[in-house]
């Protein structure tokens, strides 16, 4: 099977975790990461040239994105470094509206000549496609911001941390896992820096410096005699942070049940790998779950994926309208449900908020990729569906006149379109801890960490696994479980939400390689929540004898 086919058939494109098949750039020496890149004054003059060329060719709107995308990825297994990848991708993407139709072209030849040619191509594509366009593009108004900048507020730039330090950290985590009984361990560190310059005929010149980081591993324990193997993934989250995320500050650690360490804005990889090895081994002999109805106590690094799939994706307006019908699918959350103003997406305590500003989150930027200042807005308030995620050319379709600021492109080389902002569940207002929650459960399962996930093309029916599972009986955890997955329906599930822990338990989950569109593009997005209880959910046993 070709990888392309695998991606298509496994539906990876619409999932939360999509590994890029290419690393989006050319390999560069590590020290080249520190090169400051093109001067901002030159970027402005080149962008102006694109905008003026477009206008002279008859475009009614144009934007230019000059992007330098830097990636550093480190991969190891056990005591070996498998690969250290440093890449850079630099170029310009020009998007225009001519004859009421979008056109886009890009080039890595960021010179007067190259830009002029690409702009001409973009206008020509717009004009050619306008012949079959039925409804002209309508853009919501946007403020002219002049010359502005925004930076991810990082404390340590990954580009300034020596590769050897990163390799040592991963190999130390691997060694800790092996020492604690793991048979195999694969670990990786993904670091991204997007240096994006945006200019448009609306009069904005926006220079942004965006950072993201994701440390992760899979620890595997095997028992050859019984021919069983079990894995445990990292309890880290990809974050919109600098290398300071790797500091492992005790102040950012929460103590979970059964020795589980839960991490907020700082991650201790070596400690997590140690616990992971013990838990992977424990899974080999854990009790196989008895299928039936359980109250589920879902930890934020698990619940984030459920939020992503059952709230984030169905409330993307382009899906609702059918633009993604041939790939990721459409949505059950149709316009009539939203217009009724009484569609019960969840129980009264469910408040789901879209956000592009939250510090530390993967989605945080100052302005989106069409020059709209970012903000926070409600999707579900007191359980009622209140809004969608939409950009400049979409909001008029839901009778609004302000873009939500969630337009994104994975690179200068791809056209920007609507992408999911951070979508988070607000914590409970009264003081309530995870221990309080477990005490209140008679028959339940505590699930932590990401696992298997699958949901239908309209986001009704889903099935989720997890990383670790613990059985709760009469207010106490009584032991580890295995072969657990829960199946539910989105609306039924969110309406069974009965309790949410307070703010002190709030953490972010992240999806680093979320896929959408044809040709497919990736984006990164966070989902925050506190530990949450869902009553009476259908749990299946996934064990099989072959």
């Amino acid at each position, binding site marked *: *099977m*070709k990888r392309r*086919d*695998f991606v298509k*058939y*496994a*539906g990876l494109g*619409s*999932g939360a975790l999509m590994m890029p098949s290419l690393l989006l750039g*050319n*390999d*560069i*020496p590590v020290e080249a990461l520190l090169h400051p890149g093109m001067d901002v004054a030159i970027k402005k003059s080149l962008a102006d040239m694109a905008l003026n060329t477009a206008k002279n060719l008859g475009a009614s709107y144009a934007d230019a994105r000059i992007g330098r995308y830097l990636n550093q990825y480190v991969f190891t297994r056990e005591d*070996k*470094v*498998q690969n*250290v990848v440093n890449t850079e991708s630099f170029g310009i993407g020009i998007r225009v509206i001519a004859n009421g139709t979008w056109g*886009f072209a890009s080039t*890595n030849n960021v010179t007067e000549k190259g830009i002029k040619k690409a702009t001409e191509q973009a206008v020509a*594509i717009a004009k*050619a*496609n306008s012949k*079959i366009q039925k409804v002209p593009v309508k853009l919501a108004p946007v403020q002219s911001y002049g010359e502005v900048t925004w930076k991810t507020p990082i404390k340590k730039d990954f580009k300034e941390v020596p590769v050897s330090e990163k390799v040592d950290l991963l190999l130390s985590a691997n060694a800790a896992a092996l020492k604690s009984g793991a*048979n*195999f361990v694969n670990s990786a560190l993904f670091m991204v820096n997007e240096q994006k310059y945006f200019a448009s005929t609306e009069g904005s010149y926006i220079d942004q410096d965006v950072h993201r980081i994701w440390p992760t591993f899979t620890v595997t324990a*095997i028992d*050859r*005699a019984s*021919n*069983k*193997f079990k894995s445990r993934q990292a309890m880290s989250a990809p974050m919109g942070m600098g290398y300071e995320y790797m500091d492992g500050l005790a102040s950012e650690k929460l103590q979970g049940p059964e020795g589980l360490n839960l991490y907020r804005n700082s991650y201790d990889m070596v400690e997590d790998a140690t616990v992971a090895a013990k838990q992977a081994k424990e899974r080999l002999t854990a009790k196989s779950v008895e299928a039936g109805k359980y109250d589920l106590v879902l930890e934020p690094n698990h619940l984030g994926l459920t939020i992503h799939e059952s709230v984030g994706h169905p409330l993307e307006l382009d899906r609702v*309208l*059918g*633009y993604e*019908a*041939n790939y990721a*699918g*459409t949505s059950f959350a149709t316009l009539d449900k939203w217009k009724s103003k009484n569609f019960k997406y969840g129980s009264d305590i469910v408040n789901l908020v879209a956000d592009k500003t939250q510090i530390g989150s993967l989605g945080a930027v100052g302005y989106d990729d069409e020059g709209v200042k970012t903000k926070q807005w409600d999707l579900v308030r007191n359980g009622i569906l209140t809004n969608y995620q939409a950009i400049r050319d979409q909001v008029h379709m839901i009778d609004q006149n302000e873009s939500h600021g969630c337009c994104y492109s994975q690179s200068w080389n791809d*056209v920007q379109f609507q992408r999911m902002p951070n979508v988070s569940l607000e914590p409970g207002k009264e003081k309530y801890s995870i221990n309080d929650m477990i005490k209140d459960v008679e028959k339940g399962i505590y699930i932590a960490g990401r696992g*298997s*996930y*699958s949901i*239908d*093309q*309209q*986001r*009704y*029916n889903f*099935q989720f696994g997890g990383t670790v599972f613990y059985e709760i009986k009469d207010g106490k955890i009584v032991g580890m479980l295995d072969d657990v*997955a829960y*199946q539910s*329906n989105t609306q039924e599930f969110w309406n069974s939400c009965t309790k949410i822990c307070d703010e002190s338990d709030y953490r972010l989950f992240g999806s680093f390689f979320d896929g959408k569109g*044809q*040709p497919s593009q990736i984006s990164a997005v966070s989902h925050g929540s506190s530990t949450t209880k869902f009553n009476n959910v259908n749990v*299946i046993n*996934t*064990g*099989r*004898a*072959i």
Partner: protein
Amino acid sequence: MAIYSKEEARQIMEKALSFSTADACEVNLSGSESGNIRYARNTVSTAGHRSNQTLVVQSNFGKKSGTATIDEFDDESLKKVVKRSEELAKLSPENPEFMAPLGPQKYDESITFNKGTAEITPEYRANVASNSIEPAAAKDITAAGFFDDSSGFSAMLNSNGLFAYNRSTDMNFTVTMRSNDGTGSGWVSRDFNDVSKFDAAEASKVAIDKAILSKEAKAIEPGKYTVILEPAASVGLLGNMARAFNARTADEGRSFMSKEGGGTKMGEKIVDERVNIWSDPLHPEVPTGTWNGQGQPLKKTTWIENGKVKNLAYSRYWADQKGVDPVPFPNGFIMQGGDASLEDLIKDTKKGILVTRLWYIRTVDPQTLLYTGLTRDGTFYIENGKIKHPVKNFRFNESPIIMLNNLETLGKQVRINGNLVPYMKVRDFTFTSLSDAV
């Protein structure tokens, strides 16, 4: 121009190699021209064209490797990229699994290139869209589709004398047709190296008919059913199963292919004896390149023979460790079929479900190759040899191993995304819940 001839490619790569001072050097040159058109809501949404060319240099000093990439091929640029890869190699940690580049190899002449596909124009793509949109609109159906085509070459030269070159073309088409009342959905997929085999109107009609036929589906209880799987439905599960044909993870004890107590399931019967799966780069219906990224020749290879594991893929490193010949992983699979048409399979079914495709397939348990996912875009109830009515979509939890053990009948083969897969009738396929999704 991104497409170089064999001689042009060789000259550029020889020039790059002439600047090498490393113990070993390997150069890969590739280029492609590709175009696409996307439509939704019965109108074109985006269209694009891309031209790419890349030269990748890997230099080695002992077991240290460095890779650098460039898209300009003048002497100065070539010199720079070789130097950069050498600098990176010197700085990188030793890779204990490093294998020296291969020497000269013999390759079969591939049949992956088609002139007609290489000459697809924007007008052709626009016609594909309108051949989908117009018949859809006429039947109160909304079309959303994607067509993309590419023509490219890849070449490789190393300091041990290996030279390889290939040209290929391909096109892929998918369309989802939804009835305007929102109760019916159909889908179709086509892919070819030779675009003359593609008929957008014919393919679109299949999806339109399914959209109409699947309107107002009835709910039936989930459970174990006899299913007729169209090739587009089974290929996802088969592809996932194929990934388990990896000798290293099997030897390491973390694969379905691992054997109790140690070793692998090589030679063991794992599925019904009528199951035969092989790969063949020269198959006229599903040709692939005849060498892989490491320069290994790709030959006809049998993976499952009469239900038994015949081969597992060995990387060069793992083969060396185990003292066996490397077995490269193929680019596509062929599963033996039978004579039955879809109509024949339906006619012979007393009670069953016809499945158009499976969607959002994810691993549930790698130990048993258990996967979950859902049916989509045309699921029908069969009774006494006839399609009785459409049914609501199901979630399944099933292993392709169990599926191929429960085989009833093999039907005709169809090309699906570079693979050749037969229609299959399978008993006791496990559906675990219902979905309201259309």
